């Protein structure tokens, strides 16, 4: 390939922006279920599951190195601006880089690799939980004014053993979501001639 076709051009960058906007809006809408503390861990199910649909469509637009990585960085910025903390940023960069390499290994054409890549990419959802697990003691100690009951509820939900389960859930539902995305895409977008 010559240099021109491997460099990201304006159209690619605009595509990244559009899809990150769609994914961010979905993320913000889904995160409203977290107002009920018991449902907060279910982000790991709903976000990867639903975001699989735009992801597969995005994957058809990706054909150069860097697009997934830029999307990861943008998602990190959105998470930071919506107050999920800066812990999510390094995680977003790492998982999007891994996803990028997986897709590159399939030359950006393999649907199976796209699905697997979404499983890895979905681990960004875990980013907003990092402070809850890593600094659990201090996290809840700072919140003494929350009242005993709230802390007891929250701590009973976020047990340390939940962390690996949530990470696995992100991956599994990411793969399922992308698989559903592939079905939806074949049903609608291929027929409509968009892909």
């Amino acid at each position, binding site marked *: 390939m010559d240099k021109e076709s491997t460099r990201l051009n304006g159209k690619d960058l*605009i595509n990244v*922006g559009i899809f990150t906007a769609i994914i961010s*809006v979905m993320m913000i809408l889904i995160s409203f279920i977290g*107002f009920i503390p018991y449902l907060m861990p279910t982000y790991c199910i709903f976000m990867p599951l639903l975001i699989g649909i735009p992801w597969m*469509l995005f994957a058809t637009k990706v054909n150069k190195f860097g697009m997934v990585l830029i999307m990861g960085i943008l998602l990190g910025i959105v998470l930071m601006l*919506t*107050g*999920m903390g800066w812990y999510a940023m390094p995680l977003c960069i790492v998982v999007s880089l891994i996803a990028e390499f997986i897709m590159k290994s399939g030359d950006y054409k393999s649907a199976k690799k796209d699905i697997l890549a979404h499983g890895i990419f979905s681990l960004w959802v875990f980013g907003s939980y990092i402070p809850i697990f890593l600094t659990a003691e201090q996290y809840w100690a700072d919140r003494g004014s929350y009242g005993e*009951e709230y802390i007891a509820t929250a701590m009973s939900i976020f047990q340390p053993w939940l962390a690996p389960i949530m990470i696995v859930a992100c991956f599994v539902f990411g793969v399922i979501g992308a698989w559903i995305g592939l079905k939806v895409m074949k049903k609608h977008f291929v027929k409509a001639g968009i892909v």
Partner: protein
Amino acid sequence: MSGIGFGFAEGRKADGSGARRALLDPRTKIALLVTMPTVLLSGAGGSHTAPLAIVFALVAAALLLSCGNIATAVFGILAVAFTQALWTLLAPLASGGAYMSLYLMHGIMVHLIPCMLMAAYAVSTTTVSEFILGMEKLHVPPLITIPLSVMFRFFPTVIEEATSVNDAMRMRDIRLGGRNVGKMVEYRLVPIMMSSLRIGEELSAASLTRGLGAPTKRTSICEIGFRAQDIVVLTICAFALVAVFAIMFGLVS
């Protein structure tokens, strides 16, 4: 890319009318947008951030007043004051579930509203040109700046499309609790993505004609630069960040 701003402010027109120079430098607004959620929403400073929330709410409201958005400023301040008053008066009396819902309401309102006010101010007073110029001066590569400005430009579009698709689907009884719950997601997401992509294609074509992605250095007629008001706001941001980090690492209790 100026002028097509939907969420962004309108750019300066060719005859010199339109947006005048904003009160704050775009870089100052970016600093505020990063500082406020970090201090108020991420929970880094624990319960000590309550006074900072009030300070930031006042800063955001003052900025909104300065650009003539009086309604939003007054609403924001009243909402924060009302919730704060309710919390101070009722919290010692409540217990159990009532205390928890009161706590949640207070926490969300007092910390979220200043951020929303600030976002409203930043987006409504910054043109795409100013934003890109500010990012350039911060040495952010165009690989990040272009998708980022497209993303901010696209938020209102996606939400608008989602609202109209939502209305159409409600008419067909495809909604939560309706008869076709299973199809709810598919029948909403697919049309939203289709129309977003179409709008995106047009946006790409329009931007490329305007020289986006051209290999030369971008020029701009926007005047940006730090002035006294920027220094004041940046000092507040720096103070808040230092305070929060000091609390977080246990230097101050």
